[in-house]
């Protein structure tokens, strides 16, 4: 039950885009049509669900203050947590690079629809943000981290697909010249954020 509550919470209440503004750059750049938007969204779900547990294990067994006790008792006072940024980003960048190569080699069909987004994802703040939130909030075990990763990914996917759907319709509306394109996208994202805030306070 706790897992389910965490999962729902990370999709709606703590939505990456609307509550924390993570991944805004690609959110605005790639949300011009639904098809590419859902491709990027799927790639984000996948990378978040895999890199978060990876980074969690790295943090828990190597970086945390006193984490190295499993090697030797004398390391109990070692605190490597200042290295967490560099380790997290290296994991994410390396992982996306490997996945890109594997997908390109074994599934060319998938590569042409999804692979082009993978390098983009290495610098998507939603992924690194997920790892940093995981570190800050101190989740108890790998299961919770997986739920959080999957939930945040789905939340991001939902956000970008709805945004793309709205923007497709926007092409036919009459908008003041200065607001066309970027300006109106910001304002719509803001309005969607207000709508998503109604999920706040839901207890499962």
């Amino acid at each position: 039950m706790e897992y389910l509550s965490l999962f729902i919470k990370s999709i709606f209440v703590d939505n990456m885009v609307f509550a924390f503004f993570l991944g805004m750059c690609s959110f605005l750049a790639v949300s011009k049509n639904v098809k590419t938007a859902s491709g990027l969204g799927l790639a984000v779900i996948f990378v978040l669900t895999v890199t978060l547990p990876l980074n969690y294990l790295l943090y828990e067994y190597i970086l945390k203050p006193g984490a190295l006790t499993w090697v030797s008792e004398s390391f109990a006072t070692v605190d490597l947590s200042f290295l967490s940024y560099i380790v997290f980003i290296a994991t994410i960048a390396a992982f996306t690079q490997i996945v890109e190569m594997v997908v390109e080699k074994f599934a060319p069909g998938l590569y042409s629809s999804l692979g082009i987004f993978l390098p983009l994802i290495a610098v998507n703040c939603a992924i690194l943000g997920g790892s940093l939130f995981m570190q800050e909030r101190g989740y108890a075990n790998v299961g919770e981290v997986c739920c959080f990763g999957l939930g945040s990914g789905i939340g991001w996917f939902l956000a970008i697909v709805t945004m793309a759907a709205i923007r497709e319709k926007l092409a036919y509306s009459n908008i003041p010249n200065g607001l066309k394109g970027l300006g109106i996208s910001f304002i719509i994202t803001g309005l969607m954020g207000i709508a998503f805030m109604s999920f706040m306070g839901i207890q499962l």
Partner: protein
Amino acid sequence: MLNKMDKDIYKKPLFKGNPITVLVLGICSSLAVTVQLKGALVMALSVTLVTAFSSLFISLLRNTIPNRVRIIVQLVVVALFVILIDQVLKAFSYDTSKMLSVYIGLIITNCIIMGRIEAFALGNKPWPSFVDGMFNGLGYGIILVIVATVRELLGSGTLLGFRIIPESWYVQNGGFYMNNGLMILPPMALILLGCVVWVHRTIDKDLQEK
């Protein structure tokens, strides 16, 4: 040290080629830190320093980095500077560091930095790259400060923690004024930024889309 081309480097990012409102880079971190002016100023300063120094370093290394692994090398250089900033903030201004929480770490994936490295520092000499990085950071800072000023003034009636709107104006003290609670909430940052873009594009008509 600055010739004609260099003049363009520092004029452009501040207005006509502003990283946020024109190039749409670095939006992620810009919005969450604008509830208070202090956070925005610290963030602007950190991003300016990181962009300037990582552009300088990548530019120095530009002929030795193999093309295939350049993204990882860039990320590592940027992460190095962000760790430095993070440690300095934790040591000298712990409250601010707590307030900015994960957003300091997120400077690493701030697209302005990667964008400037890819677009400028990889093909230019160190000194112009440094200047370019610095002024792009400043262009980012200007927008942050505008949004944060509006949000802090209307949302809590203060600026940098000093009270601007007198206490006696408030309804609970028998006055007529109330803070706009909406300004403190996340979505308002986006709507304000949309308005900034609108004003910018009304002044400079070349930037309008279609």
